């Protein structure tokens, strides 16, 4: 099955356009045509053309940016759909499917009837489709791309004889070279001597030819469906009590967790959709701090979300889906305090439903000697605790934005010899302090490999001389002096 205009068909299904329509993709800094509809093709445009040229040709051109990743998803959806014809379906390139229909054609009333059925359904879905059916994968590809039809096994050579050599899935270079040699059709190529061809173009060309002719086997690689983690429950009568909804959720969780256990996976994000009788729906999203698949534990975490739902006239449909799934291998139960760690994960999840999972954080060390950049706060649910908190010098227990110190104008705050010692008397936060003992200085220079102007505006003032100042009033403060613009600041407080 070849969908010659898969990308445009996908977009036009959602919003039909009667005018020439193209999808553009930026390649090598130029917008190029990625895919175009029949109307645009009739106007003389072709794939790979520059978008600016195309607009000059065709002023009323409608265009959209191409989304190749969505096209790939659409192709995957088509692949799943195509399993209605046979169980062996694989993807072929970016816009094709390959089906091994051996033994399943009679279910649709023969090959012709099956292809008709495919064509009808594709047409109804608004997709251009070209089909080729042959005994080999290569021949089917050639037929789909160049001459739609069915080739019986004994007529295979006859059917392929007049097709151009490009039908052998050759690259453009080989194709051109073969054209120059006068080998324009597959028939010509098959009749030519094989050894010189292999020497000239490599074994690949011969293999392709043999595959198309059926002299060399080629398999269809079907893709396994990814496991689907969604379950639903339809109720004969709507329910409205929290306990009833919880019972329903419990049943759904049992089914979902059984499936997770089969695949050794654990859910990380769960979404419970409650559909009301009046077609309204309510979604409860549960983000878990760790992958888990224990129904009883997850159910308890749903309590808060379910109790907040407005049931209206009642809920008659429930759907539970695991949106994010992570592998969770079976673990050996040991006597260590694993249960307590589990309890902590539960607690993080529970708090996370209230304030957001990313707001529960832990400290992680960062390799920087700038005090306020020596650590980073990382979400606890997505990080493991890190160690290595060794500092050679005492550090304050609290850090704040540098606050300027207001001190009496003496020789130590301005002028000659400023900064050699902290001021004797200073006031900070409207409190007056007398310096009793000061330890320092410890010079910390800004990290020159970082753009301090942009990222760390506080460090624009250059190096800092840090002092641990013990005041007579008791408080132990962390002061620094900036020699390049002589001033004193308080940045932290020791225990």
């Amino acid at each position, binding site marked *: 099955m070849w969908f010659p205009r898969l990308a445009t068909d996908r977009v036009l299904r959602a919003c039909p356009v009667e005018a020439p329509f193209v999808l553009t993709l930026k390649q090598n800094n130029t917008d190029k045509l990625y895919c175009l509809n029949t109307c645009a093709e009739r106007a003389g445009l072709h794939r790979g053309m520059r978008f600016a040229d195309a607009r000059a040709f065709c002023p009323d051109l409608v265009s959209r940016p191409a989304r190749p990743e969505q096209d790939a998803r659409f192709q995957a959806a088509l692949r799943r759909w195509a399993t209605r014809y046979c169980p062996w379906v694989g993807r072929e390139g970016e816009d094709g499917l390959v089906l091994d229909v051996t033994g399943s054609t009679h279910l649709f009333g023969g090959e012709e009837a099956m292809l008709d059925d495919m064509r009808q359904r594709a047409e109804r879905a608004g997709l251009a489709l070209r089909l080729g059916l042959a005994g080999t994968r290569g021949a089917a590809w050639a037929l789909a791309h160049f001459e739609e039809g069915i080739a019986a096994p004994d007529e295979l050579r006859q059917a392929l004889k007049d097709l151009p050599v490009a039908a052998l899935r050759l690259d453009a270079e080989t194709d051109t070279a073969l054209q120059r040699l006068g080998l324009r059709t597959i028939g010509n190529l098959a009749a030519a001597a094989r050894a010189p061809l292999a020497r000239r173009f490599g074994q690949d060309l011969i293999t392709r030819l043999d595959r198309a002719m059926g002299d060399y086997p080629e398999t269809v690689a079907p893709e396994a469906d990814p496991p689907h983690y969604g379950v639903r429950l339809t109720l004969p009568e709507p329910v409205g009590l929290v306990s009833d909804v919880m019972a329903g959720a419990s049943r759904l969780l049992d089914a979902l967790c059984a499936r997770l256990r089969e695949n050794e996976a654990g859910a990380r994000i769960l979404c419970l959709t409650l559909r009301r009788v009046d077609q309204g729906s309510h979604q409860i999203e549960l983000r878990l701090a760790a992958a888990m698949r224990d129904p009883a534990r997850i159910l308890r975490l749903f309590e808060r979300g379910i109790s907040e739902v407005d049931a209206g006239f009642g809920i008659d449909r429930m759907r539970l889906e695991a949106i994010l799934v992570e592998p969770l291998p079976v673990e050996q139960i040991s006597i260590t305090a694993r249960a*307590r760690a589990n*309890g*902590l994960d*539960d*607690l*993080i999840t*529970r*708090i996370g439903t*209230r*304030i957001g999972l990313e*707001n*529960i*954080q*832990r*400290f992680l*060390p960062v390799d920087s000697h700038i*005090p*306020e950049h*020596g*650590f980073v*706060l990382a979400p*606890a649910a997505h990080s493991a*605790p*890190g*160690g290595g*908190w*060794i*500092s050679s010098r*005492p*550090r*304050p*227990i*609290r*850090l*704040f*934005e540098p606050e300027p110190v207001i001190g009496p104008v003496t020789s130590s705050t301005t002028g000659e010899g400023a900064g050699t010692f902290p001021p004797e008397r200073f006031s900070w936060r409207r409190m007056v302090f007398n310096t*009793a*003992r000061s*330890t320092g200085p410890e010079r910390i220079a800004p990290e020159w490999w970082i753009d301090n102007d942009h990222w760390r505006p506080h460090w624009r003032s250059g190096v800092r001389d840090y002092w641990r100042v*013990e*005041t*007579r*009033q*008791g*408080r*132990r403060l962390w002061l620094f002096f900036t020699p390049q613009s002589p001033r004193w600041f308080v940045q*932290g*407080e*020791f*225990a």
Partner: protein
Amino acid sequence: MHEVCGPAAPAFAAIACAQHTRGQFLWVRESWQGEALNPAGLAPFVDPARILLAHAGRQAESLAVAEEALRHGALAMVVIEITRPLDLREGRRLQLAAGAGDTVGLCIIPEGMGSNAARTRWRAAPVFDSERQDSTLMRWEIIKNKAGTLGTWHVRFDPKTRSETHRETNRLHVVSPAGNGPGSEGMPG
């Protein structure tokens, strides 16, 4: 549920955490509060890897988080920083949650904003130590105690005694300052 106020309240909380040799701590704050905890500064008291931080948007949320954490019982201790006074209902709820989860809760309060439901209230202030450098001499004053008497202690935390063999040693030394009678050996757990 205990309360602590005064300039050395964070140090008081860190030392209280240091009394627990196992388990994790949750430190609940409101996200707008500017003064950051410095893990490098906490390291002599308690391993920063054992501390979890929760940043709530409002005080109502941070109280709810603290209540949930206290009730859950998986943590060794919960520290909550509050900015406006707790009413009796809020304080009592925290107290009940701490009782149900068998977890110690410590509330860092601004001066004079204590709640009636707290078991004890402390005031911690640093004191200048004329004898030792790098000292952590503090004056701990118990200003409310539901089950005991009030008192004042001068204490000093000594990170040097922290070693594998002395895991269980109390690293807090009660010192008798000049002109002040020695306090009792009783320490909050």
